[in-house]
């Protein structure tokens, strides 16, 4: 068994930024464990641009963005292992990984940062009615085939779900010569970033069917046809509204789920984001175990991922120096009316920060609303939002002095402005 101060699981954007954040705050004895042959994670298959506007004040492709962080990791000589899969982790912070060269390696860590990203919800997870032929795949999978392997998954394509990867694949497949016949979204609103709606659908004349879902897939071997239907307010297909499309491929962009198995296996409780419960320092209820990036909650912009992960890295470095003692009591942060989840789930309210960042998503697009912060039942802050949508994660800073007397809970909720 080897020993390390800090083990970072995942060498994508979150893992690399966490490593950099930890290093820049004094940590040295660390190791990044990455499962694929390269650092950079999913950024490597995102060859479109639009990354880095906040972080680098310029527009980069995914691999370019990744490269800048790989350079930062290398400049600091932060050690990493590639092609290495973590197969187990214990509450005592023993991380077991395996690869071809080293065999099985057990690392006893003083601190761990979980940066394992997310995975895509599959056809099985939503039980699309009909057969299970080839030709139904997730957007990220289609992207991987196309951008890293050089293969097209189909010629006539329909897309279910208006998540960003689906929109980006609509454009990408069109540019590669496939015909994208439409996008169906079960919600009455789009789930992608506005810029992707415009640049990936409208610019190419690809129709978007809101409040529609795939009600049937037909094809015994390879997909032959799909049927979409309008849905009612209970999300059930309405009979008589069926539309049929002859397609060989159905691409799913129906949501991302934090890849949180390792923390689950340690018994770390999850929040409504399906990521771990963490406090403002990104520390889970297990001392010295941190979580950040998409394994904590799914982000829409990598720029926000790296900012968050750097903070988690800083916290881990502070923990290693004994500067992050566990608070005797942590205050619950609770998503209230209209709010899907909030990160952090707990506030320790220690340390010298003069404000706290709250990240959350609302459940549905709304206009003229207030976001209310209620401490122990008392409203302490309201922020007016002329428009707010679920597909864009909100980040708000709340001054410490408004929160520091909290005894039990802080509720973040959405309230309609009265007419």
């Amino acid at each position, binding site marked *: 068994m080897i020993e390390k101060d800090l083990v970072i699981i995942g060498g994508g954007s979150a893992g690399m930024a966490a490593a950099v954040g930890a290093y820049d705050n004094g940590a040295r004895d660390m190791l990044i464990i990455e499962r694929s042959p390269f650092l950079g994670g999913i950024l490597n298959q995102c060859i479109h641009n639009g990354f880095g506007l906040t972080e680098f004040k310029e527009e980069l492709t995914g691999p370019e963005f990744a490269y800048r962080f790989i350079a930062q990791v290398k400049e600091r000589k932060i050690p990493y292992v590639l092609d290495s899969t973590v197969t187990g982790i214990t509450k005592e912070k023993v991380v*077991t990984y395996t690869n071809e060269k080293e065999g099985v390696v057990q690392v006893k860590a003083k601190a761990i940062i979980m940066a394992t990203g997310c*995975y895509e919800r*599959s056809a099985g997870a939503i039980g699309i009615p009909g*057969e299970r032929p080839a030709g139904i795949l997730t957007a990220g999978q289609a992207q991987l085939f196309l951008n890293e392997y050089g293969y097209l998954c189909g010629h006539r394509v329909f897309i279910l779900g208006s998540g960003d990867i689906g929109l980006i694949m609509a454009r990408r497949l069109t540019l590669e010569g496939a015909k994208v016949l439409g996008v169906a979204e079960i919600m009455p609103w789009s789930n992608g970033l506005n810029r992707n709606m415009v640049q990936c659908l409208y610019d190419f004349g690809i129709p978007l069917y809101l409040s529609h879902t795939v009600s049937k897939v037909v094809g015994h071997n*390879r997909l032959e046809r799909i049927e979409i239907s309008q849905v009612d307010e209970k999300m059930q297909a309405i009979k008589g509204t069926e539309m049929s499309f002859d397609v060989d491929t159905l691409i799913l962009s129906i949501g991302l789920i934090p890849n949180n198995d390792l923390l689950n296996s340690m018994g770390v409780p999850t929040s409504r984001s399906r990521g771990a419960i963490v406090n403002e320092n990104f520390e889970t209820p297990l001392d010295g175990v941190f979580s950040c990036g998409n394994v904590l909650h799914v982000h829409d912009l990598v720029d926000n991922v790296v900012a968050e992960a750097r903070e988690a890295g800083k916290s881990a470095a502070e923990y290693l120096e004994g500067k992050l003692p566990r608070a005797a009591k942590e205050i619950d942060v609770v998503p209230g009316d209209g709010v899907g989840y909030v990160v952090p789930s707990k506030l320790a309210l220690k340390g010298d920060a003069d404000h706290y960042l709250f990240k959350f998503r609302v459940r549905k697009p709304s206009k003229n609303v207030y976001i209310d912060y209620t401490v122990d039942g008392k409203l302490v802050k309201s922020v007016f939002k002329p428009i707010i949508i679920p597909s864009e994660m909100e980040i708000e800073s709340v001054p410490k002095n408004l929160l520091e007397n909290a005894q039990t809970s802080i509720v973040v909720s959405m309230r309609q402005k009265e007419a």
Partner: protein
Amino acid sequence: MGYTRPVMEDLIIIGAGAVGAFIARSLSRYELSVLVIEKENDVGDVTSMANSAIAHSGYDPEPGTKKAIFNVAGNKMFPQLAKELDVNFGQVGTMTVAVEDEQIPMLNDLLERAKKNGVPAKLLTAEEVKKAEPNINPEVKGALLCPTGGIVNPFTLVAHAMENAMDNGVKLALNEEVKAIEKTKNGYLVTTDKRKLEAKVVINAAGLHSDEIAKMIEPIDWKILPRKGEYYVLDHYAPGLVNHVLFPLPSAKGKGVLVTMTTSGNYLVGPSSELVDDKDDTATDTMTLANVKAQAMTLVPKIPFNQEIRVYAGLRATPSTHDFIIEPSKKYASFINVAGIESPGLVSSPAIGEYVATKLVAAVLPLKEKKNYNPCVRPYVKPLSLHVDERNELIKKNPLYGEMVCQCEKVSLGEIYDVLSRSVPCLTVKALKKRTRAGFGKCQGGFCQPQVIRLLADYYHVTPLEVLYDKAGSQIVIDETKKEAK
């Protein structure tokens, strides 16, 4: 001149599902030439693949029926069989649960039936059930516990049975469909979509299509009625949801919707039960699945359906006679029908195989034991089940066991190559998934499928454009993107 007279086999078995594979395995003990013909491109690819993955104890079938006899006999074989074939089997016990007072007499009836069938069983009080199953419906009134019932991996069970048969000399032809059978002086002329074959004995283990095969020889007074069952699969990150196989009280339509873990720690919820017309109809349906969900929740009210990773449907080969048909045809002792093997077919198959070999085949062919018969498959190396030091030794010898292909299910490259090197061909992405679990996890191949396709393409010297997901025509990628401009 391109024709030759076909070689005369001793036996041809039609169908490589659980029944065909176990008949083949039982026959492989003897000095016989056996050919198994399967129309699909993998073994165990229809009914044997999509079922409840249960080794039933045998408390449920009516005493004296073939279902009862072969179920109980098959169940007894499983502990040994699982070792010989290196198949995951867990004798976790089954519980048939009463949730209403009126169902208690039915539990008593089932206990009587279990006794008559020679199956160990006992009644549990509501308190005992709650203690053993903390997530059970709190309204539970009692249950029948059958400790010999268990769970089994149906994919490897069939594949390894066939592998063992082949290691002992049986031949397998995949992708070949029997079109006609003619009685000849010395046996049968079997015409497939590819060639003509001759055999002294023909065994019809054609599952859903066994009535069509039987009719090639003589008129029959039974038929196979495909009966669909739809299921949910949940991920394996909710340990302890249930500890036994939980059944409701059985009805005329079958054993009802069960909730069980699988040998890989997933949970299965299902099946529905509906007769269908089309023997290829494995489509799922929203309303049916919603009904399955509602029924399952009468047993376990808090099933984490947000952990759903897959739905599927299978077709049971329900016989119009309501009992297994395991007998020679009316005219010929050398044409043996093994048909209508619906539930409890999976657990019965090994016992059916033994009976067919030692009784029905023995009546028409001399059985002489092979000297070098080996009942065991070459052990499958499972790195994750080894101690760290042993794993290190293994990876030092074969580094491929250190590289994980499927991250969700932790399947190494070494395990994949092992499977590809076995006697039973593993031709498709789905076949590899069934053997190794690569792609069976929560991301459903989202991350590893491109690598799996590349591995299969390299192994079989084809391009990724030719690699199939499942049946002919089920390619996953269908064009290259970076072609040179014309």
